[in-house]
């Protein structure tokens, strides 16, 4: 009998816990915490939907759309070796990041704009992955341009420096690639991430990505 009751109560608690979280900040914090642990396509896919549903409720915040876009573009990067699957994720990410951009006062919110440009750079880079031979010419320079814009808006953005370092790492020397410069930029990004650790729900990703690339540079 007790078991039955406990089961029923537990069921209730579960059902209501969803409602109990009806608080934007809490929800975002929960999702961002999950994002910090995300690794697989499935993780990012679920989180993208989660951020999108938060965005539906909190229609004026730039962050939910920003994160939704980031999750989708991250999938595009994970699929780097599978050109046929990237496009829908890049398209979706671009749609969301444009929404995020529209919710920013671009004249004042330089830091936020810099983060948005980072995702736009990643979106265009993901399109290059579809087939570097055919899409590289078109989207590669756009991606670099967004990275430069991100740095212009906020030179202290570790994610912008990470993307710049990534480009310097992946580009052939003849076209401006530079492994030494790449390492410097990645170390700078790492330093920036360390000096300004986890700040709640604001963008703070990058350490994993920077470390992974630094490992390859060794």
């Amino acid at each position: 009998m007790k078991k039955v009751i406990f089961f029923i109560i537990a069921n209730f608690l579960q059902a209501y816990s969803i409602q109990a979280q009806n608080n934007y900040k809490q929800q975002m914090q929960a999702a961002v915490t999950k994002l910090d642990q995300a690794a697989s396509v499935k993780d990012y896919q679920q989180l993208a939907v989660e951020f999108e549903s938060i965005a539906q409720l909190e229609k004026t915040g730039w962050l939910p759309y920003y994160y939704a876009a980031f999750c989708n573009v991250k999938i595009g990067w994970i699929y780097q070796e599978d050109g046929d699957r990237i496009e829908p994720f890049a398209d979706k990410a671009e749609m969301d990041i444009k929404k995020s951009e529209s919710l920013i006062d671009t004249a004042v919110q330089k830091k936020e704009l810099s983060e948005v440009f980072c995702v736009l750079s990643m979106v265009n880079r993901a399109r290059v992955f579809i087939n570097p031979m055919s899409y590289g010419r078109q989207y590669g320079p756009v991606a670099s341009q967004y990275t430069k814009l991100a740095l212009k808006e906020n030179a202290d953005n570790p994610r912008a420096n990470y993307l710049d370092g990534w480009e310097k790492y992946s580009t052939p020397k003849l076209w401006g690639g530079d492994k030494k410069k790449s390492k410097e930029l990645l170390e700078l990004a790492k330093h920036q991430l360390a000096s300004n650790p986890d700040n709640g729900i604001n963008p703070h990703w990058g350490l994993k990505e920077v470390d992974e690339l630094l490992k390859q540079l060794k």
Partner: protein
Amino acid sequence: MRFSGRNKIFNTLFFIFSYVAVNAQTTIRGIVTNSNKDPQSGASIRVKESNQGTYADSAGSFLLIVQGKGKRNLELSSVGYTTREIEISLNDTIIFLDIELATETKTLGDVVVISVGSFEASDKAKGASLTPIDAVTVAGNGGDIANALRTLPGAQQIGEQDGLFVRGGSNDEAKQFVDGSLLPSPNYASIPGLPQPARLNPFLFKGILFSTGGYSALYGEAMSSALILETVDMPDKSSAALHIFPQNLGAGFQELSMDGKRSYGINAGYGNMQFYNRIVPQIPDYFKGPEYISTDANFRIKTSATGMLKFYCNYGYSNIGIRSPDIDSSSLFSSFEQVNTNFYSNLSYRESLGNNWKIEASTAFDNYQNGITRKLFNVKNQQLFLPDYPYSQYNLDSSTNSKFAEARFVLRKQLVHNQAIRFGAEYFYNHYLLSSHYPSDDATNMLYNNLIAAFAETDIYIAKKMAAKIGVRAEYSALLKRTNLAPRLSLAYRFADGGQINMAYGIFYQLPEMGYLAQNRDLDFSSADHYIINYQKKAGNRLFRIEAYYKVYHDLVTTYPSYANWGDGYARGIELFWRDKRTFKNVDYWITYTYLDTKRKYLDFPYAIAPSYSTPHTLSLVVKKYFQDINLSANMAYTLATGRPYYDIQNSVSGSPFFYDEGTTPVYHVMNLSFAYLFSIFPKWKNKEFSGIGLGCNNVFGSKEVFGYYFSYNGTNKMAVTPPATRTFYIGLFMSFGIDRRNDFINENL
């Protein structure tokens, strides 16, 4: 205690039930699948205008408890699928839902793209699909796009002639189209036994569709294969380029206006093989050239946001003289001199007309002038005139002039879900003049033809995963006074795992060559029926394809006993293609296997035999590797093919043909290598130039290639048809100077 404990429980239950009465809840269980009933793990299920939601598990099932009463909208979404909304009524019960999500054709762009009988190399290629650069950098193609495509399934390895020999068809049965219009002579005028270079620079094209059968009703006059080429639009910068090779040198520029809406350019090149041939000895003896001049000019105008007008013209000149021992008499020599000029122009226009209508129109003009002089010499190099056959034929002057004009338009309406209707018409004009001058007599043949064609085609979805292209083409030739009607049909069905089955059927008509029509103006169209089935799967930057086909030829032209349409035949085969860009880092390779079984009766064949340009088995391996750290790209192409049949067909005294000699050539195997090393000579310049050294070698192993035999008139003497030299080499420098304005345009469009 027991009582009070029980009381507590009852109290709790009472509390719960009363709560439920006020806050009703509905349990929704369900499963999300796609149209193939595959579970959609990770699909999102959300109650609209609320934050209640969940995700489908790996089996596609979900459980959602929703509070409240009344109507709610449930939103189901998964990337790549169309989001669905379902209205549910909450009424304290359990609702079971079985939801199917439809593939989102809009974002995926090309869910079911029919790909049967063709290889497309496009600048929009994804994953393991070919790009134009992939195609034109195949080692050993000598700047001829048709050669590069010989490493794809369906093509035969024919070393002594240019053009494409596809699935049992001759090179005359494979046509090239540029921006919709026919390109009548893609190569410099042919010379017996010596393939001639292509006229058009392969880098001119951003889209290459190589159809080995079953192609669209928009194109015709090619029985076996259509090579559909699309030229580049606006360049992204103004630039100048030059190249210096021992065989040829050239320079050109392309100017782009500041607003990026207009561009024009001119290129010129001169090639002379004399220097090269002194270093790498050739057989036969070239006493003239080979010498080539190529010039081209273009302009492109963006007439509006969606409109584009493009003009391209090309003038080519070749001058060649060869001398070789006469096959009928070892004490005599025969010479062959040829001077060829060719002017080609193409003007094309495309524009959106609104309401999803689009027009594409093009015109093309070609003027081909070819002069051939044949002479017979004795050992003292004095011209000989012998009255007896066959020697009487060995002193000859002939000139051919072909004029060609075409105009066409295609209207297309784009419908929902990648469906479309296309229709249009085209007009061809051919004028042919052949004058031959023998010491004994002269002959002149003149004829012209007007051909009109109309075509219509639709892309439709028959079912969610099944697309069809249904087309029909009608042609009327004023010279033949005949009409033909060619249905074309292709189908594609896509499996959930991305694999796709394609099928095609069609009839493909072709006018007899003008040279044959000059002999008999009453010839009919020749035709081929194609039946093709293939399976293709593309995933993870790999592509696998298997294709089988069956073709039936009707009314092929015979030249003996008379010029007529008494020929027929068949071709069937299986082809495999595997491309992998993933397994080895920075390495891209593809493997092709072609099996061909074909027999035809045509020309002077006494009965249906395998033509000399066919072989049963062909295997190709193409490997490309880019060494990023040293800016070096390396290309290798290896081909292995079984021998080809050869025949010496003679006529008995009674006039019935027979084989005086027949056999099979040795196995053909060739490995070609090419390298391009990129660097910058002036890296400090603001607009630094990009330079490269290209070098390559064809037939690295020096295998002895025999393509067939020439037979003397009486059949007692035969001479192997071989390449003029065992190996060919090239090394040269190319430089490109440009003001890269891409960033300006990007900044404008950010």
